[in-house]
């Protein structure tokens, strides 16, 4: 039998890092044994998207700690395996200004929570919500002019700038069709 680590156990450890100020938070790879398999049963997400303001997002704007912690979590949860350092690969790039499911911080958070139908797994309930917000803040930071300007060499997003609240006060992208403005309701897209 494979030595599997229940994801809850792993996340309990990760939860402690939420308000973390000090050495880097423990990554999943450091918590499981070297062959540890996480019983996650990830499944692809739904195809709806929401466009609204979520008051929970406010705490993650102008927050340097959020983007820095988010960067470590982004690598630790294998987000980088698909999205690289923002340039994409198996999953879409995140460092340009094109957003399939919306590019505001709360929309990114929602995409991570729910997953998306072309292969993005649903991480809600698998990563503590606060950490999902931190990952979302880092992803939102990747395309900021300040973060792009800080790229030195071939690897972007290594010095993520905090996300200014002003960055999300415009609608620089178009929500996809059949999306709703109501954050609390989820609407299934066309089958």
């Amino acid at each position, binding site marked *: 039998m494979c030595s599997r680590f229940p994801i809850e156990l792993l996340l309990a450890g990760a939860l402690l890092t939420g308000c973390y100020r000090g050495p880097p938070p423990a990554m999943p790879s450091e918590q499981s044994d070297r062959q540890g398999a996480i019983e996650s049963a990830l499944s692809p997400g739904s195809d709806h998207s929401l466009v609204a303001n979520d008051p929970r997002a406010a705490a993650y704007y102008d927050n340097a700690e959020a983007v820095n912690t988010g960067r470590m979590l982004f690598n630790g949860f*294998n987000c980088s*395996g698909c999205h690289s350092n923002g340039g994409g690969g198996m999953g879409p790039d995140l460092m*340009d200004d094109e957003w399939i499911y919306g590019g505001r911080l709360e929309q990114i958070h929602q995409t991570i929570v729910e997953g998306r139908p072309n*292969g*993005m797994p649903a991480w809600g309930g698998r990563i503590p919500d606060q950490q999902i917000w931190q990952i979302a803040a880092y992803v939102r930071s990747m395309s900021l002019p300040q973060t792009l300007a800080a790229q030195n060499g071939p690897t972007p997003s290594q010095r993520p700038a905090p996300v200014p609240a002003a960055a999300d006060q415009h609608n620089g992208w178009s929500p996809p069709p059949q999306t709703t403005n109501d954050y609390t309701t989820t609407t299934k897209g066309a089958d």
Partner: protein
Amino acid sequence: MSVPLRYMLLGLLPFAAAGQTVPAPVPDNEVFKREEIGHALAAPTPGAGHTAPSAANAPQDDGQWTMPSKNYASTRFSALTEITPANAHSLQPLFSFSLGVNKGQEAAPIVADNTLYVVTAYPNIVYALDLTKEGAPLKWKFAPKPAPASQGVACCDVVNRGGTVDAGKYIFTTLDGQVIAIDVKTGKAVWRTQLGNINIGETMTMAPTVAEGKVYVGNSGGELGVRGWVIALDEGSGKLLWRAYGTGPDADVLIGPQFKPFYSSDQGKDLGVTSWPAQAWRIGGGGMWGWITYDAELGMLYHGTANPGPWNADQRPGDNKWTSGMFARDPKTGQPHWFYGMSPHDEHDYDGINEQILLDMPFDGKLRKVLIHLDRNGYVYVIDRTSGQVLSADPYGPVNSSKGVDLQTGRPILNPEKQTKLGQTVRNICPTASGAKDWNPSSFSPQTGLLYIPHENMCMDWMSMQVSYIEGTPYVGADVHMKPGPGGHRGELTAWDPVARKPVWVVKENFPIWSGTVVTAGDLVFYGSMDGWFKAVNAKTGELAWRYKVDSGIISQPVSYRGPDGHQYIAVLSGVGGWSGAVVSGPVDPRDGSAALGMVNVMSDLPKYTTAGGTLYVFSLPH
């Protein structure tokens, strides 16, 4: 006239902001010379016989092209002679057909009974075109509708390497792990068998091999911690006959009493378990997404195994059997006769899944039944296919990750300077992760005695990182940045003499060659470039005979067939993509050199040369 400094700076700024230019090539003196590291058990004896496939594996050419490899010998040699270096300049497109899918098209067009079949990249649509009518109208279209989420677990674009026609069926795989047989007359599915599970990262991209009533396929997913397998299905019903895993206990690998590997390090019980840390074989890769070769003469099945997972080799001490090697199996039972490990404990993503070409070749004074394998690790292996013994191994691309192959043990002689390390960037490793050559197959002409190898000239920087296994997500653990090999050109077409163990001529290409080659009895070699040129070169000299610019880069497998009117035709798919072309066809930003597993670092200029596409082109002489 001098330009004011501020304008010069302004001119430079877009590049600086892009943050990504093609890196400088690896210096010439970083790689070994062929003479330094090439080895053979005996000196060449070209007088001992003519190199050619057997009649059982390469029957007389009927002008069709029913399987991607052309024949079981996998020569991709067309006996048609109408098109020659002298008249190739007048080749012209006869018709084209949009595939309706702008992703990497890696398939070979298939021609049987005057019908041309083609399968696209995801969503894996199959088209059948009637070659007897002007303009080759559509006979039928089959849309298998694979699960969209399969796109998110495909490591390197959403490609498909083609289908095969046999016994009235067109048989192919889908990205979400199905094998489907379509009735060629009706265009309806005869059977569809679900084999892969995308929720654990399994996809299917390979072209099935069909022989003696069986269909042979394998899984992709070595970058997502899958456990590799090869499966035989009944051709009539699609029912599973046997499954051989690439890792784990002997029973799962189907190792039985007839298993007689040539080298001692492959002998022992349950090495697929004991050559791994506890339980790591369960998520250790070793799949099969390239070429399975059936040997009609000896009644054997040969297939390589893909890379071990994760890429970070520090997480899996041991030989990691049976990954990055090659099996010879009994096609009826799946039980192996022998195994040879090209890259035990692979540290560089050197999958063993490239093609096998089956030939009778003079060696040490007599004709031997050999298998020629152009491995990702940079060596042309000539292997006695009756025993699994390596007769010679010579580098055909830039190599410094090893210092040759030890022909006593069969193992590569590792270069400690290029071994990968946790948390440390090792620079200028050659060949790169995608290999001196990737999946795209070579051809062999019995007329010239040469192999036509389409390949890469690329190297890389590599840093290993600890990675967690999370089901259905990448399990890689490496930060890779690729770069051009010595000379700066990224691709080569090499005409290789397997008897003399050296190249006869080399054509350099700016981009890596990601298409296959086909060679004809008219002494032409056809291949495509990633910037969209379809080319014919003289098989004897490499001299360019003709070229035509298509709508998008070419990474597919060209074929040559005789049409209903008796004339020779050349068919090829355009549509750039794949691992190397994902920077054009995929959702990839060229500013991130680590994107697409480090490939973008060396391909960031491709979007300046070509755009995504997907079109079937058919060429002929005017008549």
